[in-house]
């Protein structure tokens, strides 16, 4: 298969995506048309078992389950109450409610697999009060957009499931590997907020909430904490596989919804419709991705790229720096899920050939996705927080507000390169 042919295919896909055809269609069309023109009708016949193979894969079952789990906690108001409790605890820090934004995002991330859901949930709860109390819209939007991206670094994470299933890596290990980097990145965000607040001398702080009240509010943190404990605990102690831990989490969330007195058909209907839509969107892209993947691997383009890159004699560091630039640029224009499924079949073998740890590389990819969510012009989380803002400012506020966090993420990626054990230590000690 010739190189121009492959380049043509990739551009055709990009164009189809950018003129607004469904992402899944763009990927499947290039996969099917490319496959048939190169291998004829047999290609068509062999897609059929591949499609059944994807849609019958018990590993991917955890995608709808984790989405359902997040929806249950969100629509029952458990997430809203969590924000209230955290603001009582974190509001005194310099930077005030901005810390609550990050903290709430991190906590909600621990029960939700998606960044958009995290930013949207915490954003809808937080922005009205941030505005009422006179916080700068720019820093408010920035903290929410960036905090939201923690949703895919702190487990559970749809993007880690996708990575694991595309590369045959243990999803449990990926989840566990995300915990320490997730906490550290949360800490880095908060540190930045505190420093920026002290620096600008117009430090926002919230009035102190009496200790008794704060302690009373702690009970609102119980449901998300218990759900996270069940999901991660069962994974960490090897009691459950990723799908099993998701199932346990769903039942735990359902229990708390019932306890909150909101369990009725209208709530469940909303949860089911909403999780069905999101899961359908992701799973159709996954199906298309596997069709495209078959074409890509048959053409041998991944192997050739790997040989070529390995032939360059790059060091791991040089390769990773190149990949950071590559993903930074791609992430500006592409939706991160599509970016992930379209590039992993190519970049993963290269990274493995240079001896990079597969779990570490998974976290690296997730960080690149997080970055893509807050870089303009196409940054999902920017759009989300911009959409929720109660005033009429422009999108540039969200973009500028999130910029420092993008820089922090890049620095953080460099830190992980310098000290890879931040990622690999915990999964090794499972």
């Amino acid at each position, binding site marked *: 298969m010739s190189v121009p042919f492959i380049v043509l295919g990739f551009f055709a896909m990009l164009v189809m995506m950018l003129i607004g055809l469904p992402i899944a269609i763009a990927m499947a*069309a290039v996969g099917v048309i490319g496959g048939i023109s190169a291998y004829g009708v047999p290609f068509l016949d062999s897609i059929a078992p591949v499609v059944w193979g994807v849609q019958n894969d018990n590993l991917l079952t955890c995608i709808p389950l984790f989405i359902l789990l997040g929806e249950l906690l969100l629509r029952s*108001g458990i997430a809203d109450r969590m924000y209230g409790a955290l603001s009582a605890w974190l509001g005194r820090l310099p930077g005030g409610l901005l810390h609550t934004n990050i903290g709430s995002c991190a906590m909600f991330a621990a029960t939700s697999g998606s960044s958009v859901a995290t930013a949207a949930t915490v954003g*809808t709860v937080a922005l009205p009060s941030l505005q009422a109390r006179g916080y700068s819209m720019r820093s408010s939007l920035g903290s929410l957009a960036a905090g939201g991206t923690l949703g895919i670094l702190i487990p559970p994470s749809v993007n880690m499931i996708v990575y694991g299933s595309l590369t045959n890596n243990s999803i449990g290990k990926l989840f566990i590997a995300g915990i320490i980097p997730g906490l550290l990145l949360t800490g880095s965000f908060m540190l930045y907020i505190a420093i920026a607040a002290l620096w600008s001398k117009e430090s926002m702080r919230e009035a102190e909430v009496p200790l008794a009240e704060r302690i009373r509010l702690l009970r609102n943190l119980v449901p998300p904490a218990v759900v996270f404990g069940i999901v991660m605990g069962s994974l960490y102690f090897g009691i459950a596989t990723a799908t099993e831990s998701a199932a346990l989490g769903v039942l735990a969330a359902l229990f708390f919804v019932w306890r909150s007195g909101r369990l009725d058909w209208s709530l469940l209907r909303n949860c089911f419709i909403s999780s069905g839509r*999101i899961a*359908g969107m992701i*799973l*159709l892209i996954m199906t298309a991705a596997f069709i495209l993947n078959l074409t890509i691997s048959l053409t041998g383009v991944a192997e050739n790229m790997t040989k070529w890159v390995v032939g360059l004699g790059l060091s791991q560091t040089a390769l990773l720096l190149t990949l950071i630039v590559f993903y930074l640029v791609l992430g500006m224009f592409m939706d991160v899920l599509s970016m992930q499924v379209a590039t992993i079949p190519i970049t993963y073998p290269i990274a493995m050939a240079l001896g990079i740890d597969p779990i570490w590389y998974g976290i690296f990819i997730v960080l690149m996705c997080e970055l893509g969510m807050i870089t303009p012009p196409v940054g999902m989380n920017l759009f989300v927080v911009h959409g929720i803002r109660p005033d009429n400012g422009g999108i540039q506020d969200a973009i500028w507000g999130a910029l420092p966090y993008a820089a922090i993420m890049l620095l953080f990626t460099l830190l992980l390169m310098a000290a890879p054990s931040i990622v690999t230590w915990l999964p090794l000690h499972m």
Partner: protein
Amino acid sequence: MSTASSNELPRVSEAASREPEKSGAVASKHKEGIESVLALLFGVIFLGLSVVVSVETLARKLFNFSIQGADELGGYALALGSTLAFSLAVMGRAHIRVDVFHERFPKRLKAALNLVAIVSLAGFAIFICWLAYRVLLDTFEYGSTAPTPWGTPLALPQSLWLVGLIAFALVATGYAVQAIRLFLNGSTDRLLVDFSPKSAKEELKEELEDLAVRHGGETS
């Protein structure tokens, strides 16, 4: 979950979606019914699966007992559940489309692209149906049986899978036919309202409404 970069609200969409055409009102009633049924099935499948899988996990840990096959069931649940989810995503306009350039195009081009998008989605749905049909034919021919403790005849889950995919194809084709009719009638505006990529704004509007409901319901 589509992407939108502009801070302008698609005003047409806001206004028009509040005054559906009369035929649209009937259609939307049907739509709601179908959506409810699909959602109910989706929910029953995954809540049911959660119960079975949790029982298996706990029984294995606590009582040394394994019902063996929860993972197999999970695979079948996904096969059927994902087909329902595909349909729900079509109805909710959730199949992700990038609208960063799309929304800057002239009206007629936008409308034409909307048409192409839904027709290609329907085409893909029919294509997958056909693939599933081929898989099922082979399964019947070989009498395939899952190599698992249950030894499930594969024709069973695969038939359900095909039924789900046919539903997906029907739903997508229904929308495609509607879009074609609008296009032929020259109803560009409606084609823009009903078939444009769902912008982040629209999605958030739904979220905010839901939030209002949650807070309104909070009596304490």
